[in-house]
């Protein structure tokens, strides 16, 4: 049931990204909705679910692009796992801590993704500081908004705390 929820969340994010992607890219601020979904799942459900969500989302995303299959998967796996650990070890229930986690996750993802491509001499990103910072900010804003919106749904907090006590470590 939970796996179905993760797959649905990633599929929704992918569909939104491929539909709205052209309009979400404005200069350096390019939102990666799939990464937002992975970090959201990881913070909500813990490191193992975050790891699997990252692997699944990253590999599907890689398969849909012209890049190497596995690089995005690796980056999102690491990000999903670490975000899950942060979600279980620290209290990340307020907008500001969530913003920081989303921003840090985006920067880490960019470092791994671009670093691997540069290391393998496949793509050169020049000096992408503005792009990385822009994407981090955009992802963080969207991520915090998604959390706030989901929590506005009736009974969402009760469901989450119930699910958390059963599954999270």
């Amino acid at each position: 049931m939970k796996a179905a929820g993760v797959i649905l969340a990633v599929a929704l994010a992918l569909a939104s990204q491929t539909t709205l992607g052209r309009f979400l890219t404005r200069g350096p601020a390019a939102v990666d909705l799939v990464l937002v979904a992975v970090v959201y799942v990881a913070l909500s459900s813990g490191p193992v679910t975050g790891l699997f969500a990252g692997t699944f989302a990253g590999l599907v995303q890689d398969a849909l692009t012209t890049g190497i299959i596995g690089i995005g998967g690796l980056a999102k796996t690491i990000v999903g796992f670490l975000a899950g650990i942060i979600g279980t070890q620290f209290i990340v229930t307020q907008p500001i801590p969530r913003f920081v986690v989303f921003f840090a996750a985006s920067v880490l993802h960019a470092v791994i993704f671009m670093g691997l491509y540069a290391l393998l001499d496949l793509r050169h990103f020049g000096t992408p500081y503005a792009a990385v910072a822009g994407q981090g900010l955009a992802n963080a804003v969207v991520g915090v908004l998604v959390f706030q919106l989901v929590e506005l749904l009736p009974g969402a907090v009760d469901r989450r705390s119930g699910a958390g006590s059963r599954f999270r470590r």
Partner: protein
Amino acid sequence: MALVDIRQRSGYLFVGVILAHILLISAQVSSRSGVPVLEAVTFGIFSEVQRGLSSAVHGVTSVWSGYVGLRHVKTENDTLKKQLADAQVALQEQRALADRAQSLEKLLELRDRVNLQTTAAQIIGAAATPDFRTVTIDKGTRDGLRPDMAIISPAGVVGRIVVPSARSAKVQLLIDRNAAAGALIERSRAQGVAVGGGEDRLRLEFVSEAADIVVGDVVVTSGIDGIYPKGFVIGRVEVVDKSGLTYKRISVKPAVDFSSLEEVLVVTTPTPGRDAAGEGVSE
């Protein structure tokens, strides 16, 4: 219960998944020699053993053959000197012929512009990740599309087809980090290469120091890449950063607004470069 068990081993699971990713990446990535990294690493390890054995054997044989071979060095040296002199003369002749051919090519350049056949296509999707600047169009190999066909719009050059499927095709936009097109300054005819940067601007690279480029110049395709037809608008020079004689940075604003593209034209007229590359492609 099983789920809890897996979670207790999350660290091992993490390492396992990471290793699986590394193996997956290694299997696809080619090393500098063109061989997959995994194969290159495996081969590299075993080749070191072979190298050790070979150098031991070579050490013994080279002592003997080097000593005996010295007797023939003088004769061989004289022969090689004569061959070098002959080759230098031949090189001069070839260079003269090449210069002449280049002049003739310039005369024929005017013939390049031909009527283009195009197919209209609609954009049905964007890239799955913002790190790649691609779009998906609703035409594919069934409509006669092939890799490296140029995509244009009324405003200018859009990109090229990278992955065609039966009913759709992936288009690499000119602003993608891996995209490039042969470019020409319309006013001064200075040549360069328009390179994508992953953002909304292009860079003009490989421009001669003597080239005359100013802000506002129109940049068009030169056609030398064999993909984009000659004379189509790429964009307009926005920034020229020149230090002394050298151009440090030339930024080009694309003529096409990639965020609002809805319909494009696929150039189906064959080009020499594309035909050579696409000979092995089956539809």
